[in-house]
């Protein structure tokens, strides 16, 4: 008897319309758990070396975890992974809403998609049944129309849809997969790959969740969160992400004008508090979550922002707001809607926009290039028009749709100095000159400049919470510290974060590390431990590293842009550049801590053996 999973992984080859099922067995689940672990496994196993990310041989994986579908806040999510068209290496991104839980209810632990359909299709998965259906009539539609048409033609309003809009169809390299119209598996270009496979959507509906080993304990934990969230996550409940941006900008954390300026005087105008006071019309939640941190906004003039598309998260408030020099909250909400309708990652879209604005201001792009748009920092109407052009790949939008790294090469001259990305993925909206441990994470994360699995140094600058103490982190450290001790702190926090992504548990839920263990025991019946979760995180980090090595990425790709080695033009970080040698030293120290080759960052056979993934050795260069 298994608990928490079905032992069924759906395999769909779109080239020949073949549908199959893997039953990988108990050891597989305990070794990889689900989510990011299952993604890493199938990418390494089934992705041929060196394939084009947009070729039919690329693999696209949708994976909830063993907790998904249980009545626990944060347990409705899934991971989406593929070979990234931005990095050429591993992409993985987690997404909320209801779809992940519904896939489990429909009878599958994950979906592995290969091949490419000759014409647009969507998958319809319901109570174990799988159909590949024509989607010609859906192609070109925005996400809202697509969801409505699918629900209507299948006759069920409770169907959940993961899908791409025109951005994914047009292979905008930072296109994402959208769940439930407003949740994004944002990073790395998963939606562009889905579009390249002519796969418009995956509709799911089911009626049975895998049984938990101790359902009473699971329900108890769910009730505990419902009873305590006001004490533990009050601001998230009331406002969602993006509060207190005035404080954030005073410390320099709020990226401003392409990470150039360091202070945004209009921070309050784009904060979550202002969202609530002005355009907010309520809050919504994801599957089984009492916190309900998802903003809902409505704007009637000068733009029509539809509450169905949700509201901007912090990352979006900053990426289209301060980082584009824009204080017009309605325009930021409109940009958020366009990204959700077209399936674009708001972080990379905003980052690429800010890149283009700085190019324009420095004469690298002209009015002729922009078709008359004054694409300057702060010009909200121009930003919105260019966003449309990106999604449609029209004019300069076709260049920017490649992401800022490739766009910089196309534009030429010294445009690359304005491209703020690692491995081709634009930065999360957290300043590495302030948070130096996070800066290391941006550099070494397999998926590019990821803020979601790093260590946010500021959380432990004055006091250390009980959760960090369970990882052996006992004393506060300065945010700008990048000593060996900080490298260790990042390494441990990153391991736990990736383990959390294997459970696909929401990072914003106030479950501590021990509670993650307790809920895993209650759901699966495994007598697991925090030690085993940490080992899981280390295993999956190493697998993604190995995939990147196999696909040609090197230690040289673990590099921060030059901008961060100078201060901001104003504000608290104006005289706080990062130190290049210090970052390099920390990077190689991290490799050593991970049991990788200290110079090249290639995982060693000893480490692969310790992690029980000797088979990954095949992926690595011969020694």
């Amino acid at each position, binding site marked *: 008897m298994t608990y928490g999973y079905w032992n069924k992984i759906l395999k769909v080859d779109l080239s020949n319309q073949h549908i199959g099922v893997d039953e990988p067995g108990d050891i597989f689940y305990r070794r990889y758990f689900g989510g990011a672990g299952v993604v890493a496994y199938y990418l390494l196993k089934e992705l041929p070396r060196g394939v084009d990310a947009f070729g039919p041989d690329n693999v696209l994986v949708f994976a909830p975890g063993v907790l998904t579908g249980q009545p626990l806040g944060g347990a409705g999510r899934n991971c989406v992974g593929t070979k990234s068209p931005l990095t050429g290496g591993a992409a993985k991104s987690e997404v909320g809403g209801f779809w992940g839980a519904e896939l489990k209810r429909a009878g599958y632990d994950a979906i592995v998609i290969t091949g490419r359909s000759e014409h647009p299709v969507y998958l319809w998965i319901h109570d174990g049944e799988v159909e590949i259906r024509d989607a010609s009539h859906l192609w070109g539609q925005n996400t809202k129309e697509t969801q409505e048409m699918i629900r209507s033609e299948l006759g069920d309003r409770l169907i959940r849809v993961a899908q791409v809009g025109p951005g994914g169809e047009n292979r905008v390299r930072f296109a994402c997969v959208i769940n439930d119209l407003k949740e994004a598996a944002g990073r790395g270009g998963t939606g562009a790959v889905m579009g390249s496979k002519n796969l418009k959507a995956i509709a799911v509906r089911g009626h049975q969740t895998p049984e938990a080993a101790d359902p009473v304990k699971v329900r108890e934990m769910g009730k505990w969160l419902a009873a305590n969230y006001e004490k533990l996550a*009050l601001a998230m409940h009331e406002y969602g992400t993006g509060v*207190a941006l005035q*404080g954030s900008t*005073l410390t320099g954390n709020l990226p401003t004008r392409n990470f150039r300026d360091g202070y945004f005087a209009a921070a309050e105008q784009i904060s979550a508090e202002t969202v609530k006071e002005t355009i907010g019309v309520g809050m919504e939640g994801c599957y089984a979550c009492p916190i309900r941190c998802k903003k809902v906004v409505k704007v009637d003039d000068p733009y029509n922002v539809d509450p169905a598309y949700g509201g901007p998260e912090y990352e979006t408030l900053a990426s289209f707001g301060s980082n584009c020099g824009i204080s017009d909250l309605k325009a930021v909400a409109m940009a958020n809607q366009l990204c959700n309708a077209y399936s674009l990652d708001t972080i990379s879209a905003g980052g690429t926009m800010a890149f283009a604005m700085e190019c324009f201001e420095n004469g690298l792009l002209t009015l002729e290039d922009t078709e008359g748009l004054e694409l300057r920092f702060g010009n909200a109407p121009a930003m919105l028009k260019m966003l449309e052009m990106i999604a449609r790949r029209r004019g300069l939008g076709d260049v920017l749709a490649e992401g800022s790294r490739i766009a910089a090469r196309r534009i030429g001259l010294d445009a690359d100095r304005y491209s703020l990305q690692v491995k081709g993925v634009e930065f999360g909206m957290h300043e590495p000159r302030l948070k130096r441990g996070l800066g290391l994470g941006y550099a070494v994360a397999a998926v590019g400049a990821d803020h979601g699995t790093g260590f*946010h140094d500021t959380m432990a600058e004055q006091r250390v919470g009980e959760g960090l103490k369970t990882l052996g982190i006992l004393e506060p450290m300065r945010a700008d510290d990048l000593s060996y001790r900080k490298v260790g702190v990042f390494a441990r926090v990153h391991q736990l974060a990736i383990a959390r992504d294997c459970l696909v548990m929401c990072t914003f839920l106030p479950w501590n590390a021990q509670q993650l263990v307790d809920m895993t025991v209650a759901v699966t019946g495994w007598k697991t431990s925090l030690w085993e979760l940490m080992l899981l995180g280390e295993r999956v980090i190493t697998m993604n590293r190995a995939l990147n090595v196999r696909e040609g990425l090197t230690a040289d790709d673990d590099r921060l842009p030059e901008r961060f080695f100078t201060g901001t033009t104003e504000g608290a970080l104006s005289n706080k550049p990062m130190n290049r040698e210090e970052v390099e030293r920390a990077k190689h120290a991290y490799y050593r801590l991970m049991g990788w080759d200290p110079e090249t960052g290639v995982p060693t056979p000893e480490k692969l053996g310790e992690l029980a993934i000797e088979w990954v050795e095949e992926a690595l260069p011969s020694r």
Partner: protein
Amino acid sequence: MRVTAKLYGDLRRRLPKGEESITLVLPVGAAVGDFGRAIGFEDGEVWKVSIDGQLVEEDHALRDGDTVLFFPPIEGGSEP
């Protein structure tokens, strides 16, 4: 002297439900830290404090009519 504080993020749990700010009457010469202790903040609960758009320290002397902004640590997700 009368000093008003605005609390952000989870610090707001120190306020009566639905309130955005709190005003206290403090003796002349009181500092930011005195206001914090009067509200009942624990050590390390507040990360940064600002008055008139500038970051200030705990020993910064308050003036009559000041509005003090108290900010919690910036996170990027919940703590492990």
